[in-house]
């Protein structure tokens, strides 16, 4: 197991280097600068700015400096757009916001999704099954940029129950709508995955054995069926959680949340190179790490994986 983890960690480093290099190159290919605006700056002022931020140096020098800072000191540098704010500070500050919304949304999605999915599987082809799967279909088909505004329209603008946007700290009423909006699609997906997984497991031999032993239906479902039936959900959790943790662009934008996703989209539009690289690298690392956790969890849940 340890060897497995170390091997996975070692692969991470070259992957991150490639990701950063590609990002760095792509930003350079995109036209425009962080300082460009409606009125063209006089060439002398443009020159002053380029000198101040070291953009007048040859590209390989800039690249080497960026890489060295990231790899040796884990320092992504200072944002170009936000004078004097280091990228590391920005990530540290905005990550908790994204993580709070993301984890809450995922927990909610797990709770509701697994419940609905299990019920649907246990009562296959009943009214319950159809209703919950129709709901799940709806959840998958309605994009969050539609669901979000509808929720705002109903609960904020008409009923005046909940704030329509902005971050109100943790915990606060402001969290309810973004969490609901974000969790809908995951909820639906998890419900469908659970149902499919459970249906497969419920027909397997070991469940028949469990039943034959005379276990109660409750024990059969919770101790045996659910454990096997949740395998697809577990493998889905890794990447899903990585994306949720590191911010969801659309939801953070609709609800004006100061999270990582919001910074990411703004940084790209602003051509804020250090910030873009920092966030991309951070998201990649999280994603790789989450996938590794999933593999470990797999081994734990399914003995067959361990043997291979």
């Amino acid at each position, binding site marked *: 197991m340890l060897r497995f983890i170390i091997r996975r960690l070692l692969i991470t480093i070259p992957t991150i280097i490639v990701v950063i290099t590609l990002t760095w190159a792509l930003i350079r290919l995109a036209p425009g600068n962080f300082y460009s605006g409606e009125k063209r700056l006089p060439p002398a*002022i443009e020159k002053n700015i380029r000198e101040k*931020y070291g953009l007048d140096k040859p590209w390989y020098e800039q690249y080497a400096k960026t890489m060295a800072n990231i790899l040796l000191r884990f320092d992504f540098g200072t944002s170009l757009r936000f*004078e004097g704010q280091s990228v590391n500070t920005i990530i540290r500050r905005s990550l908790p916001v994204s993580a709070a919304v993301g984890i809450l949304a995922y927990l909610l999605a797990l709770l509701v999704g697994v419940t609905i999915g299990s019920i649907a599987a246990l009562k296959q082809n009943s009214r319950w099954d159809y209703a919950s799967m129709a709901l799940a279909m709806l959840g998958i088909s309605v994009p969050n940029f539609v669901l979000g505004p509808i929720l*705002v329209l109903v609960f904020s603008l008409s009923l005046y129950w909940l704030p329509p946007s902005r971050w109100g700290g943790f915990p606060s009423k402001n969290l309810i709508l973004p969490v609901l909006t974000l969790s809908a699609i995951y909820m639906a997906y998890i419900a469908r995955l659970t149902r499919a997984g459970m249906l497969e497991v419920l027909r397997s031999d070991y469940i028949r054995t469990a039943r034959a032993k005379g276990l109660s239906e409750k024990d059969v479902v919770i101790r045996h069926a659910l454990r096997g039936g949740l395998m697809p959900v577990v493998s889905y959790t890794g990447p899903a959680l990585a994306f949720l943790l590191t911010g969801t662009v659309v939801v953070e*934008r609709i609800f*004006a949340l100061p999270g990582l996703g919001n910074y990411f989209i703004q940084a790209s539009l*602003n051509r804020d190179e250090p910030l873009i690289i920092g966030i991309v690298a951070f998201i990649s690392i999280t994603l790789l790490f989450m996938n590794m956790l999933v593999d470990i969890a797999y081994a734990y849940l399914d003995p067959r994986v361990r043997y291979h």
Partner: protein
Amino acid sequence: MVHINLKQFTALVLLAAMAYSTLSCAVASSSELYFGKTTPPARNIFRYVTGEEPESLDPAISNGQPEARIYMALFEGLVEYDPKTLAPIPELATHWRPNDDSSEFTFYLRRDARWSNGDPIDANDFVYSFRRAFAKETASRNAYMGYYLKYAQPFNEGKVFVRDPRNGNFLLAKDFDDSLPPEPLSGTPVDPAKGEYQPTPQDAQAPADSAFHQSLHTPLRLTLPGDEKSRTKLLNADPKLKDAVAGKEFVPVKAEDLGIEAVDNYTLRISLTLPAPFFVGMLAHQVFRIVPRKAVENYGEQWTQPGNIVTCGPFKLKTWQPYDKLVVERDPMYWDAASVKLDEIHFYPMSDNPTIMNLYKVGDVDAVLNHTVPNAWLHIVRTKQDYMDAVEASIDYLLINTTKPPMNDVKVRRAFNMSIDKNAWAAWRKIVKPLTAFTPTGIFAGYPQPTGDAFNPDEARKLLGEAGYPVTKNSDGSYSCPKFPVDQVEYIYNTQESNKAMAEWMQAQWKQNLGITVTLRNMDWKTFLNAKNKLDFKGFARGAWGADYMDPFTFLSLFYTVNDSGSGWSDPEFVKLLDEANRTLDSKKRYDLLAQAEAFMLKAQPVIPLDTASVNWVKKPYVKGMYPNAASLFAWKYVYIERDQAKWDFGTPSLAE
């Protein structure tokens, strides 16, 4: 059976959602006087959406409007924008005097002004702040605003003077450039007998003279590029200059050479390169606001962070949570703290318009920035009594790349202009006024704004024919112009719903009146700026410009060089008229000359003017002292929350004084 159930269920849910949203929309839009809740906040806290997250709290750095409004709470300059007219009103300067040709200004400072840490503010703070703002190392994007100050431009550009080591004399600019205008009074020796200042009753005594003052009052010195490479290149191209420079030494232009002087602790003198009657109006701009020397020197780039920052405005920084909120509170150290009415201002950095409007509707913010009411909402929000309806010092136009055929032909440019019905455009856009000139209509009182070509499709077709692209009428009444190289012309704009609608509208006009279909191409903001600024487009580009200061020159100066506007057009004749205007002291004559220049430019048609924009924002009726002025800049100390409903605003508050 089952299938029907499933479909019915889905349909029902969708229907319910739609019905509910339509219903709530209808409920919200009808009968109410204001858009959303109108309950004043419990405390005197004003909550405002100012736009994008501020780049920096350093007033020398950012050139954005969202930042400008935050700076107006935190920092002061010599003057402040009048809440209604934006004309300069006394702030840290109690009064000022121009010299006889507006090439030098003397400011008299108030003696009771203090920084938020209690330190007194005096003339040296201005000298330091100006020198810092225009220093090369600061790399301010606004530095060009200060280029009127004597030697500010060469200082900012890192240039050098040329000095004769034998006698210490500097080479003079006029000896190498015949096109220079005559020296202003600030460039001629001070004559104590005659004096360039006419005594006024307010200050019987003229400001004290000084050696530095006299050294400034000499003809403009020659400056050359600071880096050796470009200097050598320049000298090689000009043998006369090269000979003159031989054996001389190069002296960098230093901060101490700038045309700003603390005559005493409370008197400040600013000398300009050229006469600039509008100069005092520029001084409320952020780049001229003062920064705390000690904090800047102690903390470097970090001086604007909470805990380090020292301010001098009516408010001081309380908390700053980026992309969430920036809170400023009343500063007891402020010289006029007694008249500051708000306890706190909460600035919310947001840029998604529907999200902003939602927040306003539920009453979580009290006012929002300009241009936030989405087009699709206008028919509802515009009827409300909290909608701000006033002209703006800002125009919309189409840029033409005049350097590439077929648009390098003025006849073609005029034809495209004359085939757009601007009245119809304004009616369609609802909140703008049609424009044929390049300065906004109704902003500069007394300015004899010229008119450009009116809508005239027949003349347009004729012009196009004269240019070699005859327009023929088809049997169905439509037109075609088969010879016109449509592949050489396109229309670029930055991705945004309203820009797209505008592009399609223009495209339809040209198709209808000229039979030419121009290709539309959208791009992201920075890509668009890049294409526009480098003239890397063919045909048309969306253009918009808002005033930097309240003078027609802020619009016309876009064509002062070929590089600035994005059209590639300028003309020596036009530049001469502008220079002459700015040397003219009589403001009416000056306006006449500027109008002549504008008319000259309109004839060349480097742009297609479309409209004078209108402000487009909302504020709750209990917010008083905040006016929809032409630049959407607000002096916060005058803003307050009115709890007496009888005194609330009903409709747009009047801008008349």
